[in-house]
């Protein structure tokens, strides 16, 4: 790894200024993606701006409507949060399934969605729950945030400060994990939302395509009947899905259906147990 200058500012404005002062600067969250990338020489920044000195970026706030999570909050903190588990158990479960404990102790929500790896877990929750990504400049809806593989709506120097997840009566995530890395070969987040007031059920798929995507046919069927049976005959065509050493596109297409059914089943169970909010 080539050497770089290191700055750890204590405010958003100072972080932006520190980045702008660099010819080729990057922000550092937990380093769980960017450090391996730099060790391989795939990124050679002249300056690294560590966001961990900015106090407001680590926080979890839960009201009766929204779970708000600061960008620098680790996956471990989300998985362990009693408040999040009560309000959106599917989100706490998802965080606890990311990678391994060491990765969860360093990796962050903001880093995960800024990186937008096609196999990352959080993008599925952000999209299915219709979350809002808040930055130092604006608010970005989930539908606009994830643009393409490793590409988001973030502009140069823009910093994610938090993500607001609206609370919904039942939501759950199911993933078929790569047995080595635990990244999603296919992962499906299903969120039941009121069809009249909240735009209805949302189904988001990660790991299977170049970027997280919704499945409108499943969403429409689930609005009528929120049960695994409702989507039995709906499939996502293999065309355009990822085809790699881990799984063929056909296999991923099949996995989407299986993971969606599991997520629906879990969502209904948590709701019946009263584990979900309301």
């Amino acid at each position: 790894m080539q050497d770089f200058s290191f700055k750890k500012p204590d405010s958003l404005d100072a972080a932006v200024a520190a980045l702008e002062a660099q010819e080729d600067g990057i922000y550092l969250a937990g380093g769980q993606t960017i450090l391996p990338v730099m060790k391989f020489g795939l990124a050679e920044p002249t300056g690294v701006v560590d966001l961990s000195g900015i106090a407001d970026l680590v926080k979890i706030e839960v009201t009766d409507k929204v779970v708000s999570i600061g960008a620098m909050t680790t996956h471990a903190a989300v998985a362990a949060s009693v408040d999040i588990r009560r309000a959106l158990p599917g989100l706490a479960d998802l965080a606890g399934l990311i990678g391994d404990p060491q990765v969860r102790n360093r990796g962050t929500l903001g880093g995960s969605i800024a990186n937008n790896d096609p196999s990352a877990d959080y993008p599925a929750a952000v999209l299915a729950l219709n979350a809002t990504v808040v930055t130092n400049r604006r608010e970005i809806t989930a539908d606009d945030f994830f643009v393409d593989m490793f590409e988001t709506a973030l502009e140069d120097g823009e910093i994610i400060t938090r993500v607001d997840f609206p609370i919904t009566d039942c939501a759950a995530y199911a993933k078929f994990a790569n047995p080595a890395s635990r990244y999603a070969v296919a992962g499906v987040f299903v969120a039941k939302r009121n069809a009249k007031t909240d735009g209805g059920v949302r189904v988001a798929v990660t790991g299977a395509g170049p970027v997280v995507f919704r499945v409108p046919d499943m969403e429409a069927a689930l609005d009528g009947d929120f049960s695994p049976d409702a989507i039995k005959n709906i499939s996502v065509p293999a065309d355009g899905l990822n085809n790699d050493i881990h799984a063929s596109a056909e296999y991923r297409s099949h996995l989407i259906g299986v993971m969606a059914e599991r997520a629906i089943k879990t969502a209904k169970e948590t709701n019946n147990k009263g584990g979900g909010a309301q």
Partner: protein
Amino acid sequence: MPKITLTVNNEPVTRDVEARTLLSELIREELKLTGTHIGCDTSQCGACTVQVNGQPVKSCSMLAVQANGADVLTIEGHGDGETLTPLQNALHEHHGLQCGFCTPGMVLTADALLRDNPDPSEEDIRHELEGNICRCTGYQNIVEAVLAAAKTMRG
């Protein structure tokens, strides 16, 4: 060069380091604490696991500057070096190691696990040890050792 101050195994450490220095490099090459092993150097194997503020992390995937101000525990700081800790003893009793390369990382991950969850199920242990790869034992005896250590420590 950035100056960093941290605690390693309860000893204060102050060093000028290049920003690119990994925590694993500081520990092994500067401090000569070579019980922290480098298996893959690509964040996959967990052999380099140390505890930072009580939490297991992969020291090959953290910069030394990110540990500025932190409390770091390496395998040399686990126990007193004279008598085996319940965890070390259980690994010995249950034949939880063969070559021993993964063991320092396993011990530090399992130690943190037992602090958070003194009565883990077999499933809890397997889930929490997912980031530590062992190429020798097939994990069975490691899991049994952690279960046994938990029992001993609960008294």
